[in-house]
């Protein structure tokens, strides 16, 4: 060993720094999916009522924003309406040497919003893909009026955007899709636009109609209802997730356990989603 004196500098400074990193926390920060923001707020409200010493802070921004915050260390839990991407897992590995912890906490169906005046009642997954790729441009091509289809969707930081892209569109979105900040905005746009079509979480769908969705031309058309989503009959059913950097401990673990308990899952049903199992 050479320069033996200087080698002690590293552990000495390390010991000082390490001591500062173990701080007990009673504040839990949750960031991410806009689809899940109402659900997360209800969970937090109820939990804080029962556990006044704990503060749970909820913010939206989209699944991508939440996962980025998890990687950056600015949130304890990331809510996401899509599974983490491989590139995001790589970033977690690089910074924390873990793959992250995925906890499915609710089930949701991505519903297709149509204006109530729209003649079209049902769509196949292929037709949806073609619409959002810009291949089907007019409602008359799929049994509707002779009118241009106006597509509304989410911003690319949204988990719903990614999930719909990966599971339904399976190709690049058409450039004519109007990106809107939140499912509520998509619902609102379709409500006002007779020729509009949108997609989003079931819990937001008020004042518009849902399209029946068929896996393919020969499959039955299924409406997104509690029953069809719970049973997995509705073709665009997904899990909603909570992500953490490492396995939860302390107050965060208590909060997660409560969310997965019967009481927490009742909130899921109240908000309009479906229990995770």
């Amino acid at each position, binding site marked *: 060993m*050479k320069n033996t004196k200087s080698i002690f500098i590293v*552990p000495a400074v390390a010991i000082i720094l390490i001591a500062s990193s173990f701080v007990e926390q009673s504040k839990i920060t949750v960031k991410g999916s806009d689809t899940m923001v109402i659900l997360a707020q209800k969970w937090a409200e109820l939990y804080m009522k029962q556990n006044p010493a704990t503060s749970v802070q909820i913010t939206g921004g989209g699944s991508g924003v939440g996962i980025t915050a998890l990687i950056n260390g600015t949130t304890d839990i990331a809510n996401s309406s899509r599974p983490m991407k491989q590139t995001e897992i790589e970033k977690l*590995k*690089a*910074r924390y040497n873990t*793959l992250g912890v995925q906890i499915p906490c609710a089930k949701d169906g991505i519903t297709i919003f149509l204006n109530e005046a729209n003649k079209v009642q049902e769509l196949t997954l292929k037709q949806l893909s073609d619409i959002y790729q810009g291949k089907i441009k007019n409602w008359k091509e799929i049994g509707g009026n002779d009118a241009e289809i106006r597509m509304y969707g989410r911003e*690319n930081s949204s988990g719903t955007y990614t999930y719909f892209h990966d599971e339904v569109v399976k190709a*690049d979105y058409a450039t004519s899709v109007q990106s809107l900040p939140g499912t509520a905005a998509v619902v609102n746009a379709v409500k006002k636009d007779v020729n509009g079509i949108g997609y989003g979480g079931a819990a937001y769908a008020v004042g518009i109609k849902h399209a029946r969705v068929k896996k393919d031309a020969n499959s039955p058309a299924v409406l997104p209802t509690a029953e069809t989503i719970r049973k997995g009959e509705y073709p665009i059913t997904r899990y909603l997730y909570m992500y953490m950097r490492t396995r939860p401990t302390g107050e965060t673990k208590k909060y997660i356990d409560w969310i997965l308990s019967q009481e927490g899952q009742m909130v899921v049903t109240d908000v309009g989603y479906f229990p995770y199992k």
Partner: protein
Amino acid sequence: MCNLPVILIPDFCTMKNQVKPDYTEMKRLLGLTIFTIFSVCGYSQNQAVDSLKEVFDRLEGKINALDERVLVNEADLGKLNKIKVSGYVQAQWENYGKDLVKTNDPANNFYIRRARVKFMYEPLDGIKFVIQPDFSTGSLSLKDAYAVVNIPKLKNFTLWAGQFNRPDYEVEYSSNQREVLERSRIIRAIYPGEREIGVKLEYIGSKIPLKFQLMAMNGNFTGTQAKDYDSKKDLMGRLVYSIKLPDAGLGIDLGANGYFGGNRIKYNTFVSNLEGKLDSTSFTAGDYLDKNWAGGEIQIFADILGGMAFKGEYVAGVNSASSSTNQDSKAKLADMRRDPIKLRNFSGYYIYLIKNIGPKNQFVAKYDYYDPNTKLSGDAAKNELFYKTFTLAWQYYLNDNIRLSFNYELPKNETNSTNTKDLKDNTLGVRIQAKF
């Protein structure tokens, strides 16, 4: 609201005992009064509606104008959102062992190790342009300049073109994430400058946890120059399979990589062969000398009281280079007249053990080995000595942007009659990294 005009109404009570009222006249008067009231009120109402309409029109005009401005601003912001700028600065202090310090030179130094800004433009989903210069003190160099395109119809496949990292784990692992200050000796030797110019096909599976990379490149990048000296392009491939065991909090990445290339003898037919003997008869100008190697890699990530990782890579093969360097093939190799070209068998590996302690601290122990010429040892190896380097490091993440690194490197070299002892070349490094 309309203001009614004052109208005189006859007082029938007081009139009763005076004159007999004329009812026809009264009816006429009443009719006239009602007509007047409604006419005046209606006129007034029309006036109000007109003025309200004017206000509405004016406001609508203003809102439309604002709307247009918002749309223009949104379009401009949308364009700006497609440009992402990131970067980092690494300011460093190093203290060198005495054999690294020449007479009258300082034993320690402050310097800027890296100062990089990365610009990424994403005009559409699936198309990216990246450019990244490095502004180290006294020099400006281009690190990355490439375009990435999602291949239509081939989901998860991307095509890269330009100058970018060679497909190898430690090469691609960014220096702003790496847990020790420098890459392993073997990686620095066989992939100088980390980058290359060429094209790459990459597949990252979404359902299958597989990553595949195939790159065709010039094969002569050194950091200061990148041109090819022959027509044959070098090929490099890498395949990684990821295994996830979420219940155990475990992830294992297993991979293999290979480099298949060569160096063309341009003028100099004097070649130092694998045994270190000068051979002027077996090779002629125009022949290609081997530059082939293969490697295996493993990365294990475990969630045990916070994150922990074990990473390793082994590479072995044949390299061709000028005799004056025991490292990579220099680009001028094919042009060397005086130096005999050397063919060497080489091997090396690295092992990292990283433990996260809380969200802010990280302890690192690393061992790496590099033998630039495995067939020769002792005096026959001359300056092509093997090195075993042990590194201890500590990272402290002040926040997401600032990281403090303490790094102590203890290299141990092979000895022979020229280098009779292990050199005093330990290096202590302290780095502050700020990234955005």
